[in-house]
């Protein structure tokens, strides 16, 4: 493996693992609890990622691709090869992971200062970065699946970082188990594909699909199986329930995993497997994504917990990406993944900064009952926390789809894709409706959050004097990522802020043709999206203005009363506030029946199987062992074994007479022995 990209990738992959091992074993004994080990490792990773990114930009080749693999398991006909795939998507994704991870590491230094499991926290961050890089780099489904599970584990560990709180422990369990549901589908998908094609590598799979080795319903099912994994990780309806609860973890973790990278893994997977998805599968993907986008957005309207708002907004934005994959513009999905990672991570850092500050202010007042995350306790923080405010504002503009900001470009690409899809298939007019509806609601609730937090009168005036801007370790990532929410970075080398046409991203990440015979070609998708571009742009600016305007009227100018609106909406408000009672209904119709079934089965297991079958066997065995024990003792032991002992004893007492202890006797025996030997030899 002499390829420089592969070598860099090896370092990028394993450095965080090394940091994890150092931290988990000796982290506590290092100075500063070893956070510099993790930060150092992740910074090297970032530098390597940046150099790879720069090399990619200098290369400027859409077909840039390196692969390297080795045989991991060889059992005759059954071989598993693991390997790296480095192409433009990989390099961009690696940079995203490394950048956000570095920011999180630095942000956490202050945010978790004095935490009892400080070094362990950094260790898990290292483990997560390792596994996430594993997903990004793998060129086959099996190593991706392994890293996938590792990501699940590190997510479990980090959500449950404060496991003394029941809610955190439960949230960790919920996240892990919900992900399992998706992962079963993922595994079934992998097996279906392996059975048909006989390889795990993406290249082989796409060739197999194009060659018709797997087709029709089987291929659709396999694709949907893989997509189920993505649904779990990217928290798509109906597996979305874990992500809001995952906010129990430390806020930097939410920024890293539950906003920017881990949840994006599902999108990354669907982007990777896009060529094998059949039209039917894509339709399911599109509907699930679109529905999730709208549905989660409606929940976010009424949430009062600042992190919950962001969590549902994440679910909604992920739905966008999935919708984009489903409508065929999967490069737009990846683009949105990139921009979303930046602005959403920044929003989480901002919320972390606010919460941190609230927490300290409440601590000063010895108030331990007020929820520092509740926006109803905030307000008027704008002057107190200017850096946080302005960087969050930039990101909010981005997510709301305001022109000149990054989210506008990516969202526009997605909406154009869904619009073009609906133009080709008018019966699926709902997809763009989902998209634009969610866009309007997103703009509304994001500005609602901003206004409630930073504008207006302080809701707890006694706190406002203790609210301070966060330290520079926290402000730095905020400024950096806030800057990255501006559109200009993504349209380079063209400076047109409203179109990505000809930018480095659209040049380097080209859609590839679907491997499924008869699917839309890349060209058709692109031209369709291009034609829909202007209409989509106009519409999306329109809905963004609508949403922002409503938020301004309701929460900034207080022209419209939010409470009245809520009352007028009636049960809809109630549903939204309670997240459509999903958790309750899952509990009632899924968990409880399952538990009852498990209890019945355990009754059968214990009362019938265990008591009669197992214990019966036990009794038979005990009887047999008594019989054989008797035989063993009386015959083998007493007669045979002790008999040998007695023989040896008797022989010994005879022979010991020869052992006189006198050397001269021994010499005599030796000489006699020699004489006997000589006699034997002579005759």
């Amino acid at each position, binding site marked *: 493996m002499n390829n420089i990209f592969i070598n860099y990738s090896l370092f990028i992959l394993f450095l965080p693992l090394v940091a994890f091992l150092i931290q988990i074993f000796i982290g506590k004994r290092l100075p500063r609890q070893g956070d510099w080990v993790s930060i150092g490792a992740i910074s090297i990773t970032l530098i390597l990622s940046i150099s790879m990114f720069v090399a990619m930009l200098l290369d400027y080749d859409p077909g840039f691709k390196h692969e390297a693999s080795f045989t991991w398991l060889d059992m005759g006909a059954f071989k598993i090869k693991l390997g790296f795939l480095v192409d433009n998507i990989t390099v961009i994704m690696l940079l995203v992971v490394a950048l956000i991870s570095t920011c999180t590491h630095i942000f956490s230094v202050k945010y978790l200062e004095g935490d009892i499991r400080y070094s362990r926290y950094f260790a898990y961050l290292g483990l997560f970065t390792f596994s996430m890089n594993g997903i990004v780099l793998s060129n086959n489904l099996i190593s991706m699946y392994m890293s996938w599970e590792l990501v699940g584990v590190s997510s479990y560990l980090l959500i449950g970082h404060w496991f003394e709180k029941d809610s955190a422990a439960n949230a960790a369990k919920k996240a892990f188990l919900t992900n399992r549901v998706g992962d079963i589908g993922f595994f079934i998908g992998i097996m279906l594909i392996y059975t048909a094609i006989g390889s795990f590598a993406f290249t082989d799979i796409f060739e197999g699909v194009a060659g018709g080795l797997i087709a029709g319903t089987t291929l659709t099912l396999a694709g949907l199986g893989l997509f189920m994994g993505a649904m779990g990780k990217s928290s798509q309806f109906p597996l979305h329930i874990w992500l809001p609860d995952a906010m129990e973890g430390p806020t930097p973790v939410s920024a890293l995993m539950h906003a920017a990278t881990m949840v994006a893994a599902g999108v990354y997977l669907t982007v990777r497997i896009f060529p094998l998805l059949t039209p039917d599968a894509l339709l399911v993907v599109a509907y699930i994504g679109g529905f999730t986008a709208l549905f989660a957005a409606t929940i976010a309207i009424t949430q009062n917990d600042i992190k919950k708002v962001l969590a549902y907004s994440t679910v909604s934005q992920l739905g966008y990406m999935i919708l984009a994959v489903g409508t065929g513009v999967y490069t737009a999905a990846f683009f949105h993944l990139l921009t979303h990672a930046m602005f959403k991570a920044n929003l989480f850092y901002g919320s972390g900064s606010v919460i941190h500050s609230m927490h300290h202010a409440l601590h000063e007042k010895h108030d331990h009952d007020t929820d520092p995350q509740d926006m109803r306790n905030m307000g008027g923080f704008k002057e107190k926390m200017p850096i946080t405010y302005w960087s969050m504002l930039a990101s909010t503009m981005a997510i709301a789809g305001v022109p000149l900001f990054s989210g506008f470009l990516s969202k526009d690409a997605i909406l154009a894709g869904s619009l073009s899809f609906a133009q080709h298939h008018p019966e699926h007019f709902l997809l763009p409706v989902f998209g634009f509806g969610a866009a309007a609601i997103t703009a509304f609730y994001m500005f609602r959050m901003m206004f409630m937090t930073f504008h207006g009168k302080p809701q707890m005036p006694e706190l406002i004097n203790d609210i301070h801007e966060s330290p520079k370790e926290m402000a730095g990532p905020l400024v950096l990522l806030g800057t990255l929410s501006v559109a200009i970075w993504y349209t380079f080398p063209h400076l047109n802020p409203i179109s990505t046409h000809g930018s480095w991203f659209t040049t380097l990440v080209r859609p590839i043709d679907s491997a499924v015979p008869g699917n839309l070609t890349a060209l058709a998708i692109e031209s369709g999206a291009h034609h829909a571009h202007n209409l989509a742009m106009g519409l999306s600016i329109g809905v963004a203005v609508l949403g922002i305007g409503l938020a301004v009227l309701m929460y900034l100018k207080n022209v419209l009363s939010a409470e009245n609106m809520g009352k007028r909406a009636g049960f809809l408000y109630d549903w939204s506030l309670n997240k459509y009672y999903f958790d309750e209904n899952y509990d009632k119709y899924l968990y409880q029946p399952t538990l009852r079934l498990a209890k019945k089965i355990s009754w059968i297991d214990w009362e019938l199987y265990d008591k009669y079958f197992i214990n019966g066997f036990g009794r038979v065995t005990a009887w047999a062992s008594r019989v054989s024990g008797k035989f063993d003792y009386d015959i083998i032991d007493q007669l045979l074994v002790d008999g040998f002992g007695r023989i040896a004893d008797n022989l010994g007492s005879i022979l010991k007479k020869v*052992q006189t202890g006198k050397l001269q006797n021994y010499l005599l025996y030796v000489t006699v022995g020699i004489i006997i030997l000589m006699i034997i030899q002579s005759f």
Partner: protein
Amino acid sequence: MYDLNTYLIISAALFSLGIFGVMTRRNAISILMGVELILNAANINFIAFSRFGGMNLDGHIFALFVIVLAAAEAAVALAIVINIYNNMNTINVDEASAMKE
């Protein structure tokens, strides 16, 4: 003069006498003297084979080494004998039989 067998048989006689001495004497120093007889018998063999095997002096070297070893052995053995005498006031090997069961 006289063939190889003569010397070998003389050596065998000396060897047998040495063995007899080692086997039957009670005194540790007598046993040592028996050992010296055995070594001399061996030396006679070395030199006889050297004389009748082409006179190439290798046997002489070996005999020389045996003499040196005998000297070392005698020195150490006598030191041990004197130690035993100091501890047990006897050097009769059948009385100094701590090795017996």
